[in-house]
């Protein structure tokens, strides 16, 4: 039987994979991908708690949908920033981009 704990462990694993990606990848696009994974780990948690705590309202699903919308917007802004950064530095390696000054 699949219990709440399974979902929570899954979410924690996905979160850690995402965090590891964010902290270790050099390519900024891969960092963004890691971020998406961390957000989705949160979504899994939201939906799992809603399902197992037996709430009548649709609040958990609604939170997840909002989070997905915000994540989409964040990805759009992040990618646009990356393009701007690339045009300037000819590079998107986060280790190279260390100064605020252009």
């Amino acid at each position, binding site marked *: 039987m699949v219990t709440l704990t399974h979902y929570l462990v899954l979410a924690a694993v996905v979160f850690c994979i995402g965090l590891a990606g964010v*902290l270790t990848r050099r390519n900024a696009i891969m960092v963004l991908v890691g971020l998406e994974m961390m957000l989705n780990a949160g979504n899994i948690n939201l939906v799992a708690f809603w399902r197992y705590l037996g709430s009548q309202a649709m609040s958990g699903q609604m939170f997840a949908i909002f989070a997905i919308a915000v994540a989409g917007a964040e990805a759009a802004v992040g990618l646009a920033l990356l393009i701007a950064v690339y045009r300037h530095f000819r590079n998107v390696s*986060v280790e190279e981009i*260390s100064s605020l000054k252009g």
Partner: protein
Amino acid sequence: MPWIVENLWLIAFLPFLAAGISALMPRAQKKASSGIVIFAMALSLLLSLKAGGYLLKAGSSHETLHLVRNFDWLPYGDTVIRLGFLLDPLSAMMLFVVSFVSLLVFIFSLGYMDHDENFTRFFTFLSLFAGSMLALVIANSLLLLFMAWELVGLSSYLLIGFWYQKPSAAAAMKKAFITTRIGDLGFFIGLLWFHYASGTSLFYDQGQGALDPTKLSILGGSAALWISLLVFCGAVGKSGQFPLHVWLPDAMEGPTPVSALIHAATMVAAGVFLVGRMYPVFEINPTALEVVAFVGAFTALFAATIAVAQWDIKRILAYSTVSQLGYMMMGLGVGGYVSGLFHLFTHAFFKALLFLGSGSIIHACHHEQDIRKMGGLKDRMSRTFVCYMIGMFALSGVPLFAGFFSKDEILLDALHFHPANLPHFASRIPIVFGLIGAFLTAFYMMRQVKYVFFGSPRDHGAQHAHESGSPMTLPLIFLALMAVATGFLGWPGHSWFHHFMEPAAEAHPTNLYLMLGSIAIVLIALGVSAFVYSGEALRAGAVDPLEARFASLFRVLNNKYYIDEFYEKTFVLFTRTFSRIIVRFDRYILNGFFVWGSALIVYGLSLVNQLIDEAAINRGFDKGCRSVRTGSQWNRWIQNGLSQHYLKITSLAIVILFLLALFIGRT
């Protein structure tokens, strides 16, 4: 105290104020700047007229002759140096002359300087000059007079060099300043002596002034002589008397309105005015006045001979001015206080007229000043011609024109010049020189007029000449009227001017023979000159008849007796050699020995200092620096700009917090 005496200072203050405002205006504000300056001058003229009118109304009672308004200026110790303003017939007369001529010259300048890009600066300087000159006239203290005296010198300097881009103008301004300064040195010593001898610097002070009879009687004969001669030095410099006359002809490098106002009508007459003001002191010792008379008489003749052989229209007038100033000095010197000042009065108008006329001609001929390149302007510039002729007649001394009356007065006084301490022939020198000078004056003026106005144009500038606009011709007409009218104020025998200036004294009775003689001399000179300079002589390229006849004499006169060259070879050379020696001394003795010696000592000391510095101070400082640097290294590691690095720290912190929460939650 009457209102006008209380506020006499306003007359000088208004032009100063206008100069200040005009100086602050942007260069493009031509109308506003000239408007303010002219308005202030017009107000000054009104006040001057009011002052004169007050004196006339007050009548001739003796106390009202010298109305003063004194004030404390510089207290030191127990004493106070006082300055003041003075209204008496002499200052009232000068006030009228200066403000009237200034106003007309300002208006003339509107036309003459129209195209100059530094129009505003020109009006600023003119107004500064007018203010200082008016202050000079109303000064009731030799010290205040000296200040104004230097201010007019300054504005003269600035205006001569108005076109300072021209090297000749830059040289002329320096020459004028330095030459007059030589005289001013004497004046300043005289001023100090005068102050020391009389204990006050005020001229008139309710019976306690230096020129009041009580104080004058204290002054000894020899002190009076020296003071007079020293003060006269200043007058010689300012009024262009021999041997300091050299700057005045060169001053013609300035714009023509400046020549008319400063170097013909007003400032150069300041020397004559100064002698007039100090006349009571000059009178104490007869030798002082004799020196004045002889210097004046010599200058009058000497400058007239030079004027005969000049080509530049303004230089002729400049030498004529020197000569006429000589007449004024001679008039004062031979005892004719009133006649000298009367000549100053009339001369201011007709010489300003002649200069403005020449300005109108120069303007029309595209800034050509050589009379050989003019000719035939009679029909092209009829208004200027008529005015110029009136001025020329007045200067020559043709009967019923102003110069005739005033010059005759001087000659009459010279005729009565019989000082006891001089042999007879010496006392005849002024009158003889004066008569020869009168002949030459009429001669060179007729020569100039013939060259400029008659014959046919000898250069394209003159061919295309046309009459100047009304801002230029209107002042000419006004001055021409004055050049006729002022003479009648001094009608022989019934001189209103004499009565105004010195009601107590009686004038010499008119001498009909002298008058007829001088008329004859003037008419003969005019006739001879008109005859010589006619027909062939006025053709283009013709040699001056005098040059053809007396070549070597003409050359000497044309070169002004080589006085400039003489000064160049003596005084200037001496000064230059002397300064070269000084420079050597400076370079080798002062600079070589003292400066380098002390520099080496300082260098040695600083080496020692450096050692101390490096050993003690630097080391301590370096140590401090190193510890700061180590501290910063760690800070730098945290704040390195890498976003992932920040994130790592954040994650680590969250984990630690989580663990903490876990443990604290347990217990």
